């Protein structure tokens, strides 16, 4: 595990050049205000306050069961698939509360894409997987679809690997390739934010590296929230990091601050591998 004062120095330094201060005036895509979430009687998220800035990678770290995945799924309201869930508080997406009655959940999810822990392509061809979203949202023209598919596959850095086999079943690909197909599928509807729920935990180190590089490229155009239990990964790829523990945000700051100079003892203990 990571020693107490860790350091992918080169990367953090490079980031601090791009991003000199933690709270520049970048517009926020999400702003969470006093979010509480209950599964039945279990209080899973406790009074969460968390801003998420545009064109940044925000990492959410914490031990198993700390609520980090629940928080991520609250952002696109996928958490509502659990029947017993109850939510209070606000999550503002571009200044409107996503839990408002007038806010259409399908519209939210069209703007806020999600990549899951286990690659979950549809049992269709590679082409149909990527074209799925645009088709659902009414794009029928074959030429346009082709362009979207190529652009999305390029965006997900997998075009060269699959361009000759677009009509093969997506399940014929390796796990890492499947995950990038899922990312391409997500890019195809040009979302604003991409939520990633431990996207590399089911992948081998090489595929993990590719996805991490991809995340770095993607933040040019998209805002990314990534849940990870891999602290080095958070340190390598994120601009901001939030540390969750027992359903609370213990600390939120610029990633290099969190990893080099955390202000909370619990954060320090966690990133130095003393628990979790």
């Amino acid at each position, binding site marked *: 595990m990571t020693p107490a004062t860790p350091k992918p120095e080169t990367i953090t330094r490079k980031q601090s050049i791009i991003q000199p201060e933690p709270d520049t005036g970048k517009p926020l895509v999400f702003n969470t205000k006093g979010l509480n979430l209950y599964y039945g009687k279990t209080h899973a998220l406790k009074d969460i306050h968390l801003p998420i800035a545009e064109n940044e990678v925000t990492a959410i770290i914490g031990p198993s069961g700390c609520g980090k995945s629940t928080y991520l799924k609250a952002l*696109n309201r*996928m958490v509502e*698939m659990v*029947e017993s869930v109850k939510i209070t508080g606000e999550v503002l997406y571009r200044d409107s509360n996503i839990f408002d009655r007038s806010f259409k959940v*399908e*519209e*939210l*999810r*069209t703007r806020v*894409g*999600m990549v*899951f822990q*286990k690659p*979950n*392509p*549809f*049992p*269709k061809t590679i082409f149909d997987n990527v074209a*799925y*979203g645009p088709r*659902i*949202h009414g794009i029928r023209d074959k030429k346009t679809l082709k362009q979207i598919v190529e652009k999305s596959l390029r965006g997900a850095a997998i075009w060269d690997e699959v361009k000759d086999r677009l009509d093969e*079943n997506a*399940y014929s690909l390796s796990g890492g390739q499947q995950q990038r197909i*899922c990312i391409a*599928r*997500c890019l195809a*509807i040009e979302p604003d934010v991409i939520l990633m729920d431990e996207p590399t935990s089911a992948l081998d180190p090489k595929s993990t590296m590719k996805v991490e590089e991809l995340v770095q490229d993607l933040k040019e155009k998209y805002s990314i929230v990534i849940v990870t239990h891999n602290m080095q990964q958070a340190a390598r790829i994120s601009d901001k990091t939030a540390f969750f523990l027992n359903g609370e945000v213990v600390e939120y700051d610029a990633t290099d601050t969190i990893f080099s100079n955390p202000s909370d003892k619990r954060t320090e203990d966690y990133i130095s591998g003393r628990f979790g």
Partner: protein
Amino acid sequence: MLKAGSVKEMIQQKKKATSSTSVIEKAVPVLLFTAAFISVLTTIGIVFTLIIETILFFRQVSIAEFFSGTVLRPLSRVEPQYSILPLIMGTMMTTIIAMLVAIPVGLTTAVYLSEYASTGARKVLKPMIEVLAGIPTIVYGFFAFTFVTPVLREVIPGLASTNALSPGLVMGIMIIPMVASLSEDAMSSVPNAMREGALAMGCTKFEVTFRVVIPAAISGIIASFVLGISRAIGETMIVTIASGSTKNFTFDVTQSMQTMTAYIVEVTSGDAAAGTTIYYSLYAVAMTLFVFTLTMNMLARYISRRFREVY
């Protein structure tokens, strides 16, 4: 306290004492095979008998007359005629009516149970639907004859007291649980990750159901239809009671029609002497019936393999 190595000794002694275990070990597979072979043997026996007797039938009646004539008059003393087409027509019409009921209702039920019903609703509804499958077919037949037909006759003036429509509808109701439960199994086995993937892209529940779940489960769903058809073709009691025994070659379902199964019931419950043409005709009809249901069952197997989406 146990001495070191004593357990090992005990095991060895036990092994020597029970040399009979090796006999059991050898006998078990033989026994199991015999049990499995009984059903194979029965099938072979039935098919063999059917073929032999059918050949004897075709020595007395030409194949051309059997499959192309339109008149079935086995009991006529003047000029008996043996054509299976009126029976095939009866079977076909009742089956079509049954599937027109069973497919839409069964599939809708399956979609509801698998995609929309809350856990609570599913817990109550599923067993209730399965009860429907447990009702003996004679009860359905009785229900068709004494309840459905009179009600239909109020609405459809020309409806005969025995007709193809009423048993067709009731047979459809009987097959609903089969279509519903097999289709529901197929849909529920589509992994949740796929639904989540589609929902997370902004699909509505309806789009997830019809553009992800049903396509992924299509092989199981179609197989359930085909098995339902096979069940309708082979169904006997309902049509015997409620469809009568007039050997009409017609598309008019308000009239009495006889199915292949009902014909077999009629002839076997009369006194067809062994060796007569009418006696052999039973086997020819049974053989045709067997070929129909066998084809359907094989089609179901083929479809579920051919169209299986791998995930």
